[in-house]
């Protein structure tokens, strides 16, 4: 209990410290320290759970899936936090960003991380719902941080659409609760995950089915499943790049985590047919909706956002396939997505800093002007499009293998076709942006000098995921797949 609570408290404490800190110049240091401490604590949780099985501690319950999410969240959060310093370096320097506001940024940042951690560690699905709503509220300020009209518009859409979605999801939670209530009578009904999971087989199917519709539409909004995805490109494109990375890399998967918990209940109660088919459908629709926007796109971060939409579609599809291999692929995809996409958004931050715009037609010759970011960007875009030697190639191949093995050949062929279409769009823009001739007003050099060192960690990790996944990690991912397969240890 205490350790898990500590994991949550660390970012909150950091936020509190930031709030009371007398000298605003310490903000950066405190934030970075807090994030690194959270990273360490999070990794400790991951090691503990992967090594010793699910961890039940009072209010909290962390199984392999939860620990996996914790690992992703703390990892990407630490990277994003460190990158924030580089990202805001210039605006802090020239006074366009006050230290006061910088403090506000970090404060919300920590609250945001804490709320996401709460989502994936808490045992009670009702609280999980509340935490999910809290992630929206905390990140709304981060999305609108720049204060521009675009940012305002994006954050308003973000907050309204996601709040509506989450509100609908609550209805699903209530129905689930009612199902438990109906089973057990008043007094002992529960939203506790373990209790629900154990009694899942006996819950009323009609209720769960109706509830899942609301959960899927509700949390699905937050995942960015089409056609509820509409906030996603706006928010990702207008948020500061570190926040975009965080949103794309871990917030969407965190929301998906919410869907998956309920999906597991349904699978146990109703068999795989119902919710799995819905997930397959929404996965494919999300990928399909992303395609035209990736093929024709005018803005850098919107392009990346649609790619995230597509990735969420891939993962949803994989979960919908419902086999262990597919779950493994989904987990690998989530991990690689978190690394690659956050790195890409950081690159996008550098690019926007360099070119002063995110309009794709105005960006060219990255490889020449940004000697490190440019090549990394090109490679990473191709990586998220599914090129080896990076992890996403293997994860997508695994999912495809599972798709064909699961007998869903036609659906898998559609899936493959959509992947290829997305690939075409991403490859086109990657080439156009990275190659070509930059304007003479763009000097050569990296805006964030230590970015190469920061990017090395996710880059190498991705490479390892593609070339050969280390044994312990394979074991961990298999555990995640086992949880998704409904295996109770």
């Amino acid at each position, binding site marked *: 209990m205490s350790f898990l609570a500590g994991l949550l408290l660390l970012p909150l404490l950091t936020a509190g410290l930031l709030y009371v800190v007398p000298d605003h110049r310490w903000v950066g240091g405190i934030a970075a320290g807090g994030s690194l401490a959270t990273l360490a604590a999070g990794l400790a949780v991951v090691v503990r759970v992967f090594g010793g099985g699910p961890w039940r501690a009072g209010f909290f319950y962390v199984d392999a899936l939860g620990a996996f999410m914790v690992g992703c969240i703390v990892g990407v959060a630490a990277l994003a936090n460190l990158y924030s310093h580089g990202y805001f370096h210039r605006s802090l320097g020239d006074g366009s960003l006050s230290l006061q506001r910088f403090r506000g940024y970090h404060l919300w940042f920590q609250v945001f991380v804490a709320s996401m951690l709460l989502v994936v560690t808490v045992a*009670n699905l009702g*609280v999980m719902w509340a935490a999910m*709503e809290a992630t929206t509220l905390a990140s709304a300020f981060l999305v609108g941080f720049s204060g521009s009209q675009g940012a305002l518009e994006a954050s*308003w859409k973000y907050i309204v659409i996601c709040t509506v979605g989450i509100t609908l999801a609550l209805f699903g939670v209530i129905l689930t609760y009612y199902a438990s209530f109906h089973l057990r009578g008043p007094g002992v009904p529960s939203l506790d995950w373990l209790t629900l999971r154990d009694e899942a087989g006996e819950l009323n199917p009609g209720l769960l*089915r109706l509830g899942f519709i609301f959960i899927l539409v509700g949390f699905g909004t937050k995942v960015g499943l089409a056609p509820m995805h509409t906030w996603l490109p706006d928010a990702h494109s207008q948020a500061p790049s570190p926040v975009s990375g965080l949103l794309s890399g871990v917030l969407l998967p965190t929301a998906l985590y919410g869907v998956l918990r309920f999906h597991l209940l349904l699978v146990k109660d109703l068999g795989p047919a119902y919710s799995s088919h819905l997930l397959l459908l929404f996965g494919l629709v999300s990928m399909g909706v992303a395609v035209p926007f990736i093929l024709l*796109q005018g803005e850098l971060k919107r392009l990346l956002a649609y790619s995230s939409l597509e990735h969420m579609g891939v993962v949803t599809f994989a979960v919908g396939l419902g086999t262990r291999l597919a779950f493994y692929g989904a987990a690998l995809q989530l991990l690689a997505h978190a690394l690659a996409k956050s790195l890409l958004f950081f690159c996008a931050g550098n690019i926007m800093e360099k070119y002063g715009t995110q309009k794709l037609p105005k960006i060219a010759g990255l490889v020449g002007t940004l000697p490190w970011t440019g090549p990394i960007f090109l490679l990473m875009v191709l990586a998220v499009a599914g090129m080896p030697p990076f992890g996403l190639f293997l994860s997508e191949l695994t999912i495809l293998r599972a798709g064909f093995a699961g007998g869903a050949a036609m659906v898998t062929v559609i899936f493959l076709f959509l992947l290829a279409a997305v690939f075409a769009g991403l490859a086109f823009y990657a080439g156009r942006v990275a190659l070509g001739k930059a304007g003479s007003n763009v000097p050569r050099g990296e805006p964030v000098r230590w970015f190469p060192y920061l990017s090395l960690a996710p880059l190498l990790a991705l490479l390892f995921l593609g070339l050969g996944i280390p044994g312990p990690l394979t074991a961990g991912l298999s555990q995640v797949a086992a949880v998704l397969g409904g295996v109770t240890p």
Partner: protein
Amino acid sequence: MVNLVGSLSVLMLLCALSLVALRRYNSSIVAVSLQSLLLAVATALVAHAMGNREGYLAAILTLAVKAVAIPFILHWVKGRTDSGGGPPLKELSPGWALLVAGLVVILAYQSASPVTALGGVLIRASFPQAMSILLLGLFILIVRRSALLQIIGLLVMENGLYLSALTATGGMPVVVEMGMFLDLLVGVLIMGVFSSRIVGAFRSLDTDRLHKLKG
């Protein structure tokens, strides 16, 4: 008692329907606070019937947060943004809106059948209304262009939700309810802040002016 809660829920549904048709800020705020008030009463009634002390707390919280605090915040935001005047925005006409709302209500009644089929009298009497209110709240959000009225739509949704939880299970676990209230309050506050920023940036509460981000 059950009949009373049922009647209250019908009244709440009527509030929601009137909100579908109403466009004025003041009358809308009044309608939503009335709905919240009815909800608080219903909460207290259910708590009484179930002998549930926490239920009274929830009723008081509902009254304080939804019927008092939030309408107050909305008034405050409206005052700050001061865009009550001016020609009304072009929206779906009340007649059409009500027609669609009627269809939505029918769908909600039908969809609630898995729940009503299982539950007792209370559920049968009020759960369909709760679900209708939830969906109507969303419909209000779609029909209204003003940011302020959209917040009200969200409130209607919340009320529908709360009513459904109340009638189905006599309320959610305390920790969840606390979370819900907190989220709601913070949410409305944040939305209020954003509304005033929107007015500052776009000189209007009309959210249709937020259309720069496309494609």
